[in-house]
């Protein structure tokens, strides 16, 4: 083991980097892109983010406000909180004096604090630092000394959050993006929880050397997760079936290297399907995969077409089946919340016909997203959208090099058509899964896995039933991940009081081929 493989992972944030800012230990999560003018607002304090440039991910900063200015100052690693907490706990357990304390003498009459809010405002105006204000508050609190170590800690923490907020700079990953959205705006990601997203990547065997087909309306979350796993050693095709491409801006929250950014492309579904069909034009090259697809469609149409007949005829019912399927795509009138949300991600209603758009201008794409954000401004659930947009725009200003999400070239489409995709990920809760499956499964090479995500169980159950009835796949499974977080502290370990009741369902399987 003389030569160790060196990691190729970047460690520091640079100008143009996308960062996830964790404010006050998870109280608020916010995405930002670092450039000379980017700012952060905590409460009513606004500060420049330039101080973060060149700093390592994982660094902790304190927002120090003095007079009219505020700045982020990096804290040494041992002040990031865990240690203090630990010491407090030790103190709590060891000190008899503290143990004996309780709140029997507490009178909740709001008179314990001698400083008035005017006093504090005055201190702020005079440029007293946040830390000094906290000290003053403690010194002027009549009840602080009588509190248990626990409540002292709690008090200090509360005041620190208010007067000296801490900002932890995290490297955005598909997981952290998912977690942040799941807390703040879960609709935007179709209520897909982080563990479900993780499971999807494993079930679909997404990794280097994969050619992944994604059909999603979760704002780019699935595409981002796949891009991260493939890491530029394969391709991700984020397909769309609407006239305007639904944005996949979440991909841009990741700091993708050039190779990875280039590997993420978009294509209209219609084109992919057409290319796949003509690649298997039976005149040139009869391939079992097409026959299989044809067969299943025939079964579905209840037609018994003898296998010996010409293969061209064989394809006809497939087309019919598909056209019918297309019509049955649920329409925009659905009042369902997720469907509605998925539409607003796209910035427009979902048209019924798929259509082809060549080399759609990316700026235009951004505008449509902006419009969507503006349209939703009244909904009260925009903060992340705004950040997403700001992060995406910042990228334009400060990042050179390729960006993810260009249109697929015709040679890409040809390659996928002849080889087939090696994974299929569907996360479009507004679409009927069986319709999607019938149309998209033939795009996979034989023995390739697929995963369909939905916040709803029933459509997946219906689809699973059909898949099995038509012998289109093996290892078909309908699953629901369950995830519980624990508090682990000496003698005080227990599950968190609150947990997510659902993170969505997945239907997965492996496409099979039955040669004639």
């Amino acid at each position, binding site marked *: *083991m003389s030569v*160790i*493989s*060196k*990691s190729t992972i970047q*460690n520091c944030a640079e100008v143009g980097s996308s960062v996830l800012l964790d404010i006050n230990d998870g109280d608020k999560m916010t995405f930002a892109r670092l450039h000379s003018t980017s700012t952060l607002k905590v409460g009513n304090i606004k500060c420049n983010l330039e101080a973060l440039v060149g700093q*390592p*991910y*994982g660094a902790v900063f304190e927002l120090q406000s003095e007079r009219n200015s505020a700045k982020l100052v990096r804290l040494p*690693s*041992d002040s*990031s*909180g*865990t*240690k203090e907490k630990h010491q407090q706990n030790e103190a709590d357990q060891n000190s008899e004096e503290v143990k004996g304390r309780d709140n029997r003498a507490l009178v909740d009459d709001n008179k314990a604090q001698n400083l008035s809010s005017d006093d504090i405002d005055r201190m702020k105006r005079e440029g007293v630092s946040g830390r000094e204000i906290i000290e003053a508050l403690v010194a002027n609190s009549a009840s602080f000394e009588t509190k248990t170590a626990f409540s002292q800690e709690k008090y200090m923490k509360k005041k620190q959050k208010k007067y000296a907020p801490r900002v932890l700079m995290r*490297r955005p*990953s598909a*997981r952290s993006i998912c977690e942040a959205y799941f807390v703040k705006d879960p609709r935007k990601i179709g209520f897909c929880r982080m*563990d479900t*997203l*993780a*499971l999807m*990547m*494993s079930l679909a*065997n997404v990794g*280097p*050397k*994969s050619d992944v087909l994604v059909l999603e309306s979760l704002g780019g979350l699935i595409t981002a997760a796949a891009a*991260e*796993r493939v890491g530029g*050693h394969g391709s991700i095709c984020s397909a769309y079936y609407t006239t305007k491409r639904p944005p996949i801006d979440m991909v841009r929250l990741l700091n993708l290297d050039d190779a990875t950014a280039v590997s993420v492309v978009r294509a209209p579904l219609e084109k992919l399907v057409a290319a796949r069909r003509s690649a298997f034009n039976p005149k040139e090259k009869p391939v*079992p*995969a097409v026959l299989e697809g044809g067969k299943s469609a025939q*079964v579905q149409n209840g037609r018994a077409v003898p296998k010996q007949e010409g293969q061209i005829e064989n394809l006809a019912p497939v087309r019919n089946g598909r056209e019918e399927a297309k019509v049955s795509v649920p329409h925009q009138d659905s009042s369902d919340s997720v469907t509605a949300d998925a539409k607003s991600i796209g910035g427009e209603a979902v048209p019924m016909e798929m259509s082809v758009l060549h080399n759609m201008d990316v700026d235009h794409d951004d505008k449509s997203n902006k419009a969507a954000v503006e349209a939703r401004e009244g909904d009260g659930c925009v903060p992340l959208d705004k950040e997403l947009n700001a992060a995406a725009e910042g990228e334009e200003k400060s990042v050179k090099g390729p960006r993810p999400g260009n249109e697929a070239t015709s040679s890409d489409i040809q390659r996928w058509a*002849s080889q*087939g995709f*090696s994974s299929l990920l569907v996360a479009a809760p507004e679409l009927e899964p069986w319709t999607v499956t019938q149309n998209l499964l033939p795009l996979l*090479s*034989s*023995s*390739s*896995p697929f995963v369909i995500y939905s916040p709803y*169980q*029933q459509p997946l*159950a*219906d689809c699973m*039933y059909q898949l099995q009835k038509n012998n289109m796949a*093996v*290892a078909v*499974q*309908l*699953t629901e991940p*369950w995830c519980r*977080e*624990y*508090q*682990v502290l000496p003698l005080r370990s227990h599950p968190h009081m609150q947990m997510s009741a659902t993170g969505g369902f997945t239907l997965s399987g492996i496409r*099979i*081929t039955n*040669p004639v």
Partner: protein
Amino acid sequence: MRRKKNDRDGEVRKGDKLIQDGDLVIVYETYKQMKAVTVTKNGEFQNRYGLFMHNDWIGKPFGCKVTGKKGGFVHLLAPSPQLWTLVLTHRTQILYIMDISFVLAYLEVRPGCVVMESGTGSGSLTTALARATAPTGHVYSFDFHEQRAEAARKDFERTGLSSFVTVTVRDIQGEGFPEEFANEVDAVFLDLPQPWLAIPSVAKSLRADSPVCSFSPCMEQVQRTCEALTTKEFRDLRTFEVLLRTYEVHEECLGTDLGLDDSVNNDNDSESAVRSPRSSPPHKRLCSVESKVIDSEEDQTQVSSKDNLMEKGPKKGRSRGEQLPSSLYPIVARPEAEAKGHTGYLTFARRAV
């Protein structure tokens, strides 16, 4: 590094790749019955569905259905970490897909990452890690059990991942991770009886801001590990438990006739209440017969496995043979009766900067 003649590079197959002599295939009978087989010229494979000749497999595409001498069939699948977990030889307890996927996501494992783990065990997680870090990263796996390490190496040869994994015999609890890894590692995974003993060397090995995960079945282990992690070297301690619930899906027959003459249900059944089974065409799936469970497998309709099929099906109170005048035939999903209740706790922390 050693490569087999058919370079499998991360195990993904493009197009409809054809099975060749020397290939590893996953012989799929049912979801609960799969086997890893290396195809050899003139080789044979025998299972309860009959005798299969490898020669018949060569040249067929992965994902195809092959028929044995007795007319039974199996599917031949391309290997993937997910399938490998289901077929590998158990030398220890192994991690399954839910824990594996969570670990990969939380450790942010991606191509180019250098990952360390101990122990190697049966290589279930190792296989997934290798798949995820290839082709530019590497997995260093440590196990104190000489034979187990050797068996794992053989497995990685077989799955075509040996150039992405290095298995070393070493007692990590006693000796810690090797010094030369100091500050070089992007993620560490521990599955040890006393993981807290390894934490100081984990702190040394991890690059700034990089995560560690410790998997332990017992809360007492988690407790001690968290205490060891509560130093200035780590932050963001979080402990999770993840489980997977699987559903079985079938068509169910629900009667709508309560024997009441013209009660409420008349309004309903005008449209949707009285319906023929949706699956009418090829299947004679009438309520009076026995609502058939298409559980995980169409294969199960093959000869011998019918019994356990029935067990899994819902027992219905209705008497058979009685043709119901009006019924609904919805597709229903029911959680499978048995599930893993607990595998282990997953504790994560990040190296402080």
